[in-house]
């Protein structure tokens, strides 16, 4: 679906209101997701810290003790000399030159095959970093090179992914003939995809790396995942150690990266789809719960309002009657009507089921004596505007 530029230009006015509404709703979702991501990051940080810090302190102590040992054993070297040497060595390492080791091996980090590999890591955005350009010209060229190369690789990956998908789809066709149900096919095809792909692109290469590079099983798996998600730390690099590699090793690794990336892209987008579905379902459920809650609250408040309305009318009637009775009494007895005493208010929830109480109260009013006015049930007129009734009850 392309933007309908050719047919009609986007007019801002008609869809504006609906858009504003839609935008408001959508921003809520975005903020929710964003908060989730931040939470995820914080959680990850806490876990990493608790896992790694002890190790790091261990390493630190170890290297410090090494240094002290060295200094004590070789007394003609002083601390500053040593530190200077180490500094130089470290920066050389960063530039890819490893002085610890025989300097006679002539393999450069920038011979054609390694440079090819480096170019590959730049384009795929993996970016191991065990090799990196150190000249200004190299860096500028790297920028320009990546600018052109990354989209190029993107298209390539799309194409490879397409082909993978078609091959896979043809396989599904054959499976389809055996089953009838659609959902079964989908589930089975997903499982097959994941399993087969994991075997071909993850397990097998990991085993090969373990054998050739001498890493542990976990380290090989770690390398595979970190590379194929294009994170590319560079702590483990296939073809980066000082081992004698076979000639076709690096190109094969590179080809594996290409296809593996397509596979991982599909896997990651699948996980993304699942996350979307989960979030949608959660939203639906939350929406349902909220709808129910809203309904329930609406019902309850409607009932409550209705009841309050009735009560206020009844009380108003009673008040009128009580007032008229009092007037009659006082006129019979010859008193002037005493001022109404308003007791401090206390809102009471009245139990309207008890008709007897009301009658009693009414009866009590009949037997009024002026001094018992304080003990009388003084009703404030219902405030119909506010819908509130304050019923004052003073117990005798």
């Amino acid at each position: 679906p392309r933007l309908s530029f050719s047919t009609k230009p986007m007019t801002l006015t008609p869809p504006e209101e609906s858009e504003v509404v839609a935008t408001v709703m959508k921003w809520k979702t975005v903020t929710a997701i964003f908060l989730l991501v931040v939470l995820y990051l914080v959680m990850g940080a806490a876990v990493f810290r608790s896992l790694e810090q002890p190790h790091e302190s261990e390493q630190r102590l170890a290297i410090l003790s090494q240094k002290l040992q060295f200094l004590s054993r070789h007394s003609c070297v002083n601390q500053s000399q040593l530190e200077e040497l180490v500094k130089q060595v470290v920066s050389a390492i960063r530039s890819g030159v490893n002085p610890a080791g025989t300097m006679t091996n002539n393999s450069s980090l920038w011979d054609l095959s390694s440079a090819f590999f480096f170019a590959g890591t730049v384009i795929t955005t993996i970016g191991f970093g065990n090799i990196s350009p150190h000249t200004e010209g190299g860096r500028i060229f790297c920028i320009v090179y990546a600018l052109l190369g990354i989209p190029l690789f993107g298209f390539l990956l799309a194409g490879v992914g397409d082909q993978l998908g078609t091959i896979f789809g043809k396989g599904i066709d054959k499976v389809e003939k055996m089953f009838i149900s659609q959902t079964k096919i989908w589930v089975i095809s997903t499982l097959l995809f994941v399993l087969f792909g994991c075997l071909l692109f993850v397990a097998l290469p990991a085993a090969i790396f373990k054998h050739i590079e001498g890493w542990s099983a976990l380290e090989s798996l770690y390398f595979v995942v970190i590379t194929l998600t294009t994170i590319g730390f560079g702590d483990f690099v296939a073809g980066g150690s000082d081992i004698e590699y076979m000639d076709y090793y690096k190109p094969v690794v590179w080809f594996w990266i290409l296809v593996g990336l397509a596979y991982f892209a599909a896997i990651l987008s699948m996980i993304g789809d699942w996350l979307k579905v989960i979030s949608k379902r959660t939203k639906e459920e939350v929406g349902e719960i909220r709808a129910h809650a809203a309904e329930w609250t609406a019902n309850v408040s409607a009932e409550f309002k209705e009841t309050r309305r009735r009560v206020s009318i009844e009380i108003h009637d009673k008040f009128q009657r009580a007032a008229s009775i009092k007037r009659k009494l006082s006129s019979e007895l010859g008193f002037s009507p005493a001022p109404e005493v308003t007791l401090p208010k206390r809102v009471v929830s009245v139990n309207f089921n008890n008709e007897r109480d009301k009658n009693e109260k009414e009866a009590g009013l009949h037997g009024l004596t002026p001094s018992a006015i304080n003990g009388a049930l003084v009703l404030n007129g219902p405030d119909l505007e506010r819908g509130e009734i304050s019923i004052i009850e003073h117990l005798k």
Partner: protein
Amino acid sequence: MALVGRSWLLLVGFILFYVIYLLFGALIFSTIERPMEDKLRHDMEVLKKEFLNQSCVSAASLENFLFKVLAANKYGVFLIRNASATSNWDLASSMFFANTLVTTVGYGQSTPLSDTGKAFSIFYALLGVPFTMLVLTACVQRLLYPLVLAPVSLLQRSGLEPRPATAVHFVLLLFLVVLCFFVVPAAIFTKLEESWSFLDGVYFCFISLCTIGLGDFVPGMQPEQKYRTLYLGAVMVYLFLGLMMMYLLLRTFHKMSDVHGLTTMLQLPRCEDSDPDEDREPIVDHGESPQRQTEKGASNHLEPGSQVSYNTINRG
């Protein structure tokens, strides 16, 4: 049939062209970097010789020592810093690490040492990467209207044809992004980091925002960095915003090439907006999505070809 044949041909052509591009890059890198490397090597030899000459250290024990130092260095444990220096795994740095993990930048200046850490990274990444991409896509989706569609329609209403309008807008957007996300941050980094030149700053910004993340430059790694937590937090925000803008740029470029008919010519997947959810109401008038040859919905989720480019594959 001819269509299938053509698509295969195109793919093969692409691969070939890609390999040539890589070879070309390799050649250039080689010629630029190799002399510098040789010089450095030579310097190191001289240094070692000097050191060994004037001291009682034997070559073997020096090698041994250096080996250990470098092994520690690889994991970010530096000999030169004081023992009381900031850890690589305090909360701020760990969060920074987690951030580089889920955005797939992956500098590598500090990497998990323990086995458990490595195993955890695997799972964390497998979940976190698509998650981040979802968030980025969602954000870009919302930004698309104010930053792309509204200005383009504005340009159109002031008389431009659709094609030049999109081109002009793209150039403007590009210029703005370069200014705000490359030039200005690079200048800031040059101020804050002692050893970085302006070019280094631009290089760092570029390498990070393309998620290459070589790791030769990482901010906040100086031993006496003030306000380190704040600094790292700001860098994380910058990375996130920058990634969003890069993705937006890519999207805009893709849409523009759609309008200009480039994508159909090269038989590349067209730029699709994601399927309209309740939550993502289509802002733009969508035509019918082109029916592609999908196997009866079975592999719909899995078809990698349903994603646009590499960047959109990863980013949902």
